[in-house]
């Protein structure tokens, strides 16, 4: 089965790394995975988009065509990519106002807030988001996600990032209870 992810936000939020870790975790689970990206000239700010395709079969086309999951950490990315969503689920940060004009199923999750207040570091929002994506999609096992996080994050930050990932898993469980209930704020 082919599962497609689109991770969007602003440059510097670390979404590319989150995408890489997700793909790597899938490989640890013996699946195929491809990660692509698009980015602007800005190293910080600007828009940033990473895509991950995970499948048990060969992946001929590496980009998301009809994403199963869209992560939107900023209002801008929500507005850009939300309207393109069909069958998939939008996971939007709770700081972003949800719009009635965007029809796809949506859950609003306090990713940035959890990173800042519960984990204690704003910069790990990407890994919290990864935990949410992993937890909701089950495209990679938790064990593999943890292993992939440890291998890809800067040395000395493994513990912090694993706790961010676990906080994301918890948010996913909470959000799962929202599913079906459209556009509710968590």
């Amino acid at each position, binding site marked *: 089965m082919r599962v497609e992810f689109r991770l969007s936000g602003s440059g510097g939020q670390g979404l590319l*790394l989150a995408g*890489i870790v997700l793909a790597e975790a899938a490989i640890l689970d013996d699946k195929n995975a491809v990660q692509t*990206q698009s980015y602007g000239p800005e190293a910080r700010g600007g828009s940033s988009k990473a895509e991950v395709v995970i499948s048990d079969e060969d992946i001929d086309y590496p980009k998301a065509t009809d994403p199963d999951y869209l992560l939107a950490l900023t209002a801008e990315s929500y507005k850009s990519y939300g309207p393109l969503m069909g069958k998939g689920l939008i996971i939007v940060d709770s700081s972003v106002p949800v719009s009635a004009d965007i029809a796809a199923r949506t859950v609003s999750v306090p990713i940035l807030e959890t990173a800042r207040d519960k984990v204690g570091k704003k910069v790990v929002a990407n890994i919290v988001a990864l935990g949410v994506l992993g937890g909701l999609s089950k495209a990679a096992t938790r064990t593999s996600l943890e292993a992939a996080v440890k291998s890809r994050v800067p040395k000395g930050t493994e513990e912090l990032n694993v706790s961010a990932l676990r906080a994301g898993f918890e948010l996913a469980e909470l959000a799962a209870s929202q599913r079906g209930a459209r556009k509710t704020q968590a």
Partner: protein
Amino acid sequence: MSSTLSYFRQENLPHIWCPGCGHGTVTGSLIRAIQRLDLDKNKVCIVSGIGCSSRAVGYLDFDTLHTAHGRALAFATGIKLARPELKVIVMTGDGDCTAIGGNHFIHAARRNIDITTIVMNNNIYGMTSGQYSPMTPKGMYGTTAPYGNLERSFDLCELAKAAGATYVARATSYHVPLLIDLIEAALQNKGFSMVEAIVQCPTYFGRKNKVGGPVEMLNWIKDGVVNVKAAASLPPEKVAGKKLIGELHNAPASEYTADYDELIAKVQRTYEGFQGGLYGCASNSD
């Protein structure tokens, strides 16, 4: 010591330079400096660009490389970095070195890579028949400066020094013993060395500017320079408007390829037991 002629590929002679050209004098001076230092012919590599000056390497019996216009120093950088044990020499002209190759020149100097650069400055593009170069003095004539050159010229020695060359000198095709001495000293500097050799181009510069034939041009060159040692004790009016010849800058500093070898040793100590790059790569993140 071998005979001077033994440093030449005699089967490639005669050369293509005009009668009275100064490039042969500079080439001969380089060979005499190499001869005095008794450098191993098999470990000397001479690189040139494009232009009259750059034809010199074809006549010399070393590993020689006649490259693209302006690029001699970039090719030479590759050779020197790949095999630091080689003595690498660049022979170039004023157009080749200071116009199209100007960027490579300042960066080779900045790196202080051990290359000896001989710039044969005849103040004109000779191979293409007499256009003005960045070394053509303001007001002089060329086929592309039919009403006189409006552009200011470089002081190449000051440029080399400012860019980081650790040995800088100037001589002329009139002052041959000095030229040989300076090239010899330049070859011994472990770092980027530049010797500017002012030479006559009677065919184009001399004719265009009505300076005369080779002899008149040599006298004109002689009158335009003053030795840096003499200049120190001369009244300013005797020095004004003249170019200084002699050793103008000698400030040894750590050399690029030697530094690189140290870096390799340091990295290899850190990665002791490292089996090569294939699977040992740290993953390259965004």
